């Protein structure tokens, strides 16, 4: 698969939020405001790319060699959790500005299933290192796009006359559902 195909596929066709339904929790949690959505998106992009590279080497270097493919999930979770902690420490020291900008989103990513999903799908699809990196970037860009689009809609919804029973999360879920249907339109693209 060419890099362009991977990018388009992961951003639009197989958007992690709207098509694969991964990362719904942070999607609903931080899509209230455009600003926080962007912050979360940047943090996810950063971590997903790093963790994909790391898990790629661990899979090829350790798990495959020893025939321990079945340990994949638990090892990847361990790697992601440790990586997020490490990245947080480094950023806190190196760039307090970036640390403040990412804020609480960085530790939250530990439990974001998009990160694990991308790492596992990289292996399942049998990508090489370059493809892995672009798959990671595309996936997290798709996630960011979903967050930003949803936050734009939800900012407008704040002012809309929503029926009492649908205020808050119900209308957010309906919105997400409609956006997911809209994203189905990309299906024939590739």
């Amino acid at each position, binding site marked *: 698969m060419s890099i362009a195909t991977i990018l388009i596929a992961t951003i639009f066709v197989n958007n992690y939020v709207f098509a694969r339904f991964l990362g719904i929790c942070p999607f609903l949690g931080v899509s209230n405001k455009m600003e926080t959505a962007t912050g979360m998106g940047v943090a996810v992009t950063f971590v997903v790319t790093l963790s994909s590279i790391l898990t790629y080497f661990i899979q090829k270097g350790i798990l495959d060699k020893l025939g321990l493919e079945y340990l994949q999930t638990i090892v990847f979770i361990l790697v992601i959790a*440790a990586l997020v902690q490490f990245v947080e*420490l480094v950023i*806190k020291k190196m760039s307090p500005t970036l640390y403040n900008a990412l804020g609480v989103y960085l530790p939250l990513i530990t439990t974001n299933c998009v990160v694990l999903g991308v790492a596992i799908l990289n292996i399942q699809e049998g990508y090489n290192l370059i493809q892995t990196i672009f798959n990671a970037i595309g996936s997290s860009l798709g996630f960011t796009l979903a967050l930003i689009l949803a936050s734009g809609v939800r900012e407008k919804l704040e002012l*809309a006359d929503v029926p009492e029973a649908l205020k808050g999360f119900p209308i957010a879920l309906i919105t997400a559902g409609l956006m997911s249907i809209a994203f189905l339109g990309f299906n024939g693209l590739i």
Partner: protein
Amino acid sequence: MTDILNPIIVLGGLGLGFGVLLSIASDIFHVDVDPKIEEIRSVLPGANCGACGFPGCDGLAAAIADGKAPVNGCSVGGMPVAERVAEIMGEDAEDMKKMVATVLCQGDCDKAKEKYEYQGITDCRAQNIQQAGSKSCTYGCLGGGTCQEVCEFDAIEMINGVAFVDKDKCTACMKCIEVCPKGIIELVPYENEFVVKCKSEDAGKVVRNNCSIGCIGCQICVKNCPVDAFSFENYLAKIDYDICTNCGICAEKCPTNAIFSSAVKELAV
């Protein structure tokens, strides 16, 4: 045997490796934090309610230690917490002025003119999009009650189309100030009774046409103030709350009653 040993070694080894790496990293990348932040954090209620306007108690603790927030920043904890925080900061809680939100507009339905009849969603932010609201005065309170909605302490009341803040219920959480599209809610020291309740920077004649209780920029208050607490800019008088002695002369002299006591709900006319 290797079938069992291998996974144990790999998983245990990875876990141990990451653990050691992280502990080394936390040592290398150790950042010294102000010990005051920890202390203040332990005094705060820890409810993470966000009423202070900072992201949770941690955010407020950092801001107080940094001097960006007052020691009485936690409105939920009130005086007891403020005193303990002040102790940590080495300040006197008594010196801290209690601030309250005050709506700087009195142009209610009878006093301010409308330029059109608004029939949309009852929300100031929505109304403000339509030609800056239905009032002829583009600075005034829209009366949509958005501030009342965001107030968690039930301190805001809508009286005849203008918001009014109950001084005693207000905790200065800033929520109404942030949400008001007109920016006419400001923090005023609790002690200060007299406030210029108008934000109009229009010329006197325009203000007179739009509203019977606006500041027309006549500067009578500036001339009559015994302690020179007034400044005057853009056709609008402003009181320096630090200098003001609450003598009330300005409120007496003000021809339009734009300067008025912040504690009284409505002008008795």
